[in-house]
């Protein structure tokens, strides 16, 4: 039995009669201290998958286990790092990290707390910005702070939800290295979601592709046998690396074509009679992709009463 397991999990959203399956029959097992990357297209359900892993949502079917124990709610064993940092904007970097530390180590004295926070902030090279608020930081610094917060909780499994997708290429490279360094020096299990094949190949032990939605699922994994430390500059000339990257890319492109073909075949289907949706009733932050239509229907008009 593996350390972290997804066992036949399925999940969908929407009301009973108009349901969209997001993930169906997902299976994954991750060994202890393994670095697994999950690659997939936008909107394939990657974030849903990571939320399932983190225990933020429950699968409709199947189960997710860590060390044999079923995950039913977020647990300190699973540290999640969100795509858009999710730092609390009214707290400084120190306070953001300290808030997390206090939850996991409630018995810490003030000094211990400070020491602990500074250790992890130092680990991501953010000590000079300790007293700054997120709004005063750059995107890369924010992501580091977020990383420091996740690490400071000493989780057994680190769940990274497209941690670097919002960063520029240079910062991205720096933080990639940092994550790898931390993982190497302080071994633990990592599940990273990404849409960048290069990144996945560079960092992971194993790459699992997520098929196109709806009803996406995980396909067979591509093991990455490249030796570590992997050097970004030399890697490009490494034939093994190039072959692996090509394989995965090709696989992904095929996925996309299949999806297109699927859509094309559906194009002959008679269009349903639909009315325009009043988008003014949508929540402030519009949902992306297909979910928009679904949400528009479920949004309760009452919530807009006071606007």
């Amino acid at each position: 039995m593996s350390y972290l397991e997804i066992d036949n999990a399925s999940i969908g959203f929407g009301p009973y009669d108009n349901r969209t399956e997001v993930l169906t029959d997902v299976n994954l097992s991750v060994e202890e201290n393994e670095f697994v990357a999950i690659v997939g297209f936008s909107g394939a359900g990657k974030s849903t998958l990571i939320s399932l892993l983190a225990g933020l949502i429950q699968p409709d079917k199947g189960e997710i286990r860590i060390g044999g124990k079923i995950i039913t709610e977020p647990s300190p064993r699973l540290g999640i790092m969100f795509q858009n940092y999710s730092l609390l904007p009214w707290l400084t970097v120190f306070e953001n990290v300290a808030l997390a530390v206090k939850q996991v180590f409630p018995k810490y004295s003030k000094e211990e707390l400070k020491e602990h926070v500074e250790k992890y902030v130092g680990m991501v090279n953010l000590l000079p910005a300790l007293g700054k608020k997120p709004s005063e930081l750059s995107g890369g610094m924010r992501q580091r702070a977020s990383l420091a917060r996740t690490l400071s909780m000493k989780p057994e499994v680190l769940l990274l939800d497209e941690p670097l997708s919002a960063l520029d290429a240079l910062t991205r490279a720096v933080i990639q290295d940092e994550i790898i360094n931390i993982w190497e020096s302080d071994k633990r299990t990592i599940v990273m979601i990404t849409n960048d094949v290069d990144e996945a190949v560079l960092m992971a032990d194993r790459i699992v592709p997520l098929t196109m939605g709806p009803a996406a699922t995980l396909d067979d994994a591509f093991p990455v046998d490249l030796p570590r430390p992997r050097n970004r500059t030399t890697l490009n000339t490494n034939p093994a690396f190039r072959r692996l990257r090509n394989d995965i890319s090709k696989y992904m492109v095929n996925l996309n074509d299949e999806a297109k073909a699927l859509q094309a075949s559906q194009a002959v289907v008679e269009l349903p009679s639909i009315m325009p949706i009043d988008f003014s009733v949508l929540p402030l932050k519009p949902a992306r992709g297909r979910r928009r239509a679904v949400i528009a229907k479920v949004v309760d008009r009452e919530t807009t009463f006071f606007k």
Partner: protein
Amino acid sequence: MAEKTADAIKYKILRFLDVTGFTVFDPIVRLAFREEPKKQLESIFKFLIIPIMFICFCVWVWWTVAPNHKTKSGEVPTPDVVMQSARINHTFSEREKTKETDFLLVGEERLAALAAVEAEMESKSVILAELEARLAQHESNYAQVLEARLAPLQKELDEVKAKYDAIEAEKKVLITEAAAAIEAGTGTTEALLAAIRAEGIAKDESRAAESIIKDKIDAIRSDKYKPLETARLDVNAVADQIQFLKKRVDFLSQSNRSMKVLEAEETLMEYQAKLAKATTAKAALSEAKRVVRAEDSIERLEKQQYASAMTVYLQVKRSIFTVFVGFVVAAIIAIPVGILCGLSRIAMACLTPIISIFKPVSPVVWLLIFQIVVGAFFPDPESHPFFLFFNSLPFIGNLGINPALIFSGCTVAMCAVWPALVNTALGVASIDKDHINVARVLRLNFWERLTKIIIPSAMPLIFAGLRISLGVGWMVLIAAEALSSSDGLGKFVWDEYQNGSSFSFANIIYACFVVGIIGFCLDRMMIVLQRFVSFDESGTSL
């Protein structure tokens, strides 16, 4: 190094301007530190000079339009009259202060002040006599001028009257003749009717002609004779001063606290002497009672304070206090209820009808309701421990806290509660999903979630709501005070309206500016607070 400190100072000032919302003055500060002078001068011109010129233009329009707009109830005052009324109000408050110090003066100082005041009074009396003589002169002049202007009109009126009297008499003769003709059988009824109609027409004509002249006479009578008006104002001003000096003399002599105490002490001694001499039980008893009472009265007199009349400054103070009371009550209700509504859809559903129905209710209605409700709580307000306690506190004790203040405050609270409540609910309900996820991942319990995530995240909206609330409260308060005659700026305005004196209109406009400026300051205060709690850099709309 010096440059660096200068820069530090500059940025401190700029930061202060930014926080307080006075960024308009940025260029001046920058110019003072010689930062791109040309650019600064340009923006000073654009955003400072032009607006100032515009305001000057507005004042100029006011100045020129106001005197042309006359109603019978009074003239629209020009800015200088409004300034004068501000000065009069200031003088009034200064006089109250003087009286208070006079009341408390003792010993040599009192005597010196008394002598000075008496001397001043004497000199003023001389001036007053002069002014009165001048006024009498003007009055007789005016009478003459009026007579001269009216005489021709009066003559004309008499002539017109005589003329039409003659015509009417003529017509009357015609009527009699026509009637007689009918009797004689020579005339027709038509002729008689025509004659009567002709008389009616003649009468109407005469009235029309007379009323034209009468209107002219009225117009001349209501023309203001400037020298007379000014002379009258001068006399009134000096007479007022003398009145005031008289009062000062009173406060420096008989009504002075120390003098009253002295007098009471003398009485006490007298009674004590009588008590010592008392031989019968009855006499002793009655004298002893008097002694005790005299002692009590000395004690009371020693603690007596000057009872100041309500000046505009005191009223401002009381209004601000009242609005503060109402605002705090509103915030105490609105924030928890708003959070509850934001958290729970059920609570929201319960409160939605209540909020929707009561939000648009006019403050006047609330005032009347609270007047009755609050009145029921304090059957005997003067000796109610609640008021006794508050009126014994420093700073706010002299504001005279009474049920009127309470129900004005309640009215303010009732009207101010809605914006804060709705905004708080919105702030809580629209909390970022990511922050909720953070809370779940960190496994915060309900209380921690509330204090560490929900409230801080809703803070900017809560404060935006409170800012609206304070603005609404201030507006409502003035109306509430005017209606309930609870001391404050509203009452000041209402009293002025009721006074109907020649300065009333100017005083109302003065109050309008005072209310506006205080409202502006309160709003700025809230902006500063809002800036402190908001974590995004988007700034706050002014």
